[in-house]
């Protein structure tokens, strides 16, 4: 039987505010346990939550970026459940009237693009962390994370493979980083995902029973976890069983999912509007301001790079992964517009490799955009060959010296003087009569031998194009 896979994702994005969503405690990652958990965060009686303006604004920014309806009035609700990392006995979230309503996102796939609906995105507070390992019979609770603002982005069940789910997740990741509303750090838990997965016979209209996979914090895991869960569900159904609606936890160690909670009442959250918080009104002025300040979004910029510079999709996407990287590319291209493709190659190749090796971000690159532009200019104006440029680049990276200085110091200028090169060509031809004969009798391969000789004689400083032209003129076949 042919099976159809249906996937919806819930992505939790930590917003990069300085302070928490409902308190003025710091959100910095990695602080000593509970030193950033104030009276509001630990749920002491008598405290009142006060909403963080920046969290609201960041949520609106996301909404505008995915063409979503922004609720002029939205409401916070209590989601009631007992777990020690949420000391109030409820999480402040949104239920009816979330801040961001229906939107959509286009993902790029090998076989073309596909639009995925976004159901909603709402603001809520993160929970603390439980540490189960180190205490006999006890669990340790660190509430530093409690109250960190989260934007939960809920998709429609419109993805039909693990690949699509990953493409969607990557797209959301690039947007939130691009908008600078989250650092998107998956290791630190700033970007987490739950996947709702179900299968149904191909062509069937009604949805199959779904399971929810939690604990997905890498692009690799989500793909593997979904594929695994799909196989499991098909196996169960084909062997006559039924899928039980449940939450499953992905275990990366043995690449499997297992059921997490079986307590049905855990899902009885009894949402109700939080009486501690008044409705949030998004003023027209704020919305207009966010719209006016919206940067050119990655997918728009990607298209522009493809259209204006003829870049490949993958390269254009790599350049637009962050505003910083796109800005770097733009700054170099502005100086040497005719070399856009070459510049893209460099930024995605040599520069990306060096940055990765030295664990730097592009803003920290020892070779800044201005320095890079000079190097690109020297290739464009024929001062050095592309090959020599690789060495110059390494030297620039190591010493933070300008391209011109390195070319000067190491005498790397190409020999473009026609007279000088012509003399060398004559010499090569005279010294190697046997090869000349071979070439003239039709052995094209021998041509490379002459080019190689000339490069050797000039220590690689001859302009390869010029050498080729001169040799061709000299070695004319009858």
């Amino acid at each position, binding site marked *: 039987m042919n099976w159809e896979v249906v996937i919806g994702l819930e992505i939790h994005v930590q917003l990069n505010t300085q*302070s928490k969503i409902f308190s003025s405690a710091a959100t910095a990652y990695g602080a000593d346990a509970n030193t*950033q958990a104030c009276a509001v965060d630990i749920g002491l009686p008598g405290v009142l939550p006060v909403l963080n303006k920046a969290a*609201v604004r960041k949520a609106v920014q996301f909404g505008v970026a995915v063409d979503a309806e922004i609720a002029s009035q939205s409401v916070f609700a209590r989601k009631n459940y007992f777990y020690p990392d949420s000391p109030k006995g409820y999480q402040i979230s949104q239920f009816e009237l979330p801040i961001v309503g229906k939107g959509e996102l286009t993902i790029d796939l090998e076989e073309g693009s596909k639009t995925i609906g976004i159901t909603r995105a709402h603001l809520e507070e993160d929970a603390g962390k439980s540490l*189960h390992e180190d205490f006999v019979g006890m669990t340790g*609770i660190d509430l530093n994370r409690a109250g960190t603002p989260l934007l939960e982005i809920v998709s429609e069940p419109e993805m039909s493979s693990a690949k699509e789910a990953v493409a969607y997740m990557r797209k959301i990741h690039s947007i939130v980083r691009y908008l600078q509303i989250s650092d998107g750090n998956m290791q630190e838990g700033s970007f987490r995902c739950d996947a709702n997965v179900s299968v149904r016979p191909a062509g069937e209209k009604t949805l199959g029973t779904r399971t929810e996979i939690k604990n997905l914090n890498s692009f690799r895991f989500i793909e593997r976890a979904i594929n695994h869960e799909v196989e499991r569900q098909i196996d169960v159904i084909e062997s006559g069983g039924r899928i039980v609606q449940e939450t499953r936890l992905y275990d990366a160690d043995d690449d499997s999912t297992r059921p*997490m909670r079986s307590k049905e009442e855990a899902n009885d959250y009894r949402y109700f509007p939080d009486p501690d*918080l008044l409705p949030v009104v998004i003023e027209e002025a704020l919305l207009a301001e966010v719209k006016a300040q919206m940067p050119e979004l990655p997918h728009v910029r990607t298209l522009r790079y493809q259209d204006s510079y003829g870049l490949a999709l993958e390269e254009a996407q790599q350049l637009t992964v962050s505003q910083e990287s796109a800005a770097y590319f733009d700054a170099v291209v502005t100086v040497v517009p005719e070399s856009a493709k070459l510049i893209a190659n460099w930024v995605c190749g040599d520069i990306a490799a060096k940055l990765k090796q030295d664990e730097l971000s592009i803003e920290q690159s020892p070779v800044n955009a201005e320095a890079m532009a000079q190097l690109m200019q020297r290739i464009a104006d024929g001062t050095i060959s592309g090959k020599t440029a690789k060495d110059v680049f390494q030297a620039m990276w190591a010493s933070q010296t300008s391209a011109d200085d390195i070319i000067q110091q190491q005498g790397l200028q190409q020999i473009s003087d026609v007279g000088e090169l012509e003399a060398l060509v004559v010499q090569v031809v005279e010294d190697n009569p046997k090869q000349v004969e071979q070439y003239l009798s039709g052995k094209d391969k021998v041509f490379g031998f002459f080019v190689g000789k000339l490069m050797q004689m000039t220590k690689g400083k001859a302009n390869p194009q010029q050498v080729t032209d001169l040799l061709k003129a000299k070695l004319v076949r009858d």
Partner: protein
Amino acid sequence: MALTTAEILNIAKLARLHVEESELADYQQDLSAILGFVEQMEQVNVDGVEPMAHPQDMAQSLREDVVTESDQRDRFQSIAPATANGLYLVPKVIE
């Protein structure tokens, strides 16, 4: 609308409240009376009335994103039943 004993027990369980067997009947009567009152309100015609999210007809005021809280862990933890290494300790939670 009358709540069953099972429903009362479930509500208590969700709220982590201990209810004595002998109190069940009282809770059953009181909570059912509240629901009965809500039922009565449901008969009011509210066509065209927008639901209010809050009895106070005001908008939430927002605070600037500034850290003003300092670390008061020691004070908070002085009233906690158990702590270690800066963590609050609770009876083992197994997921």
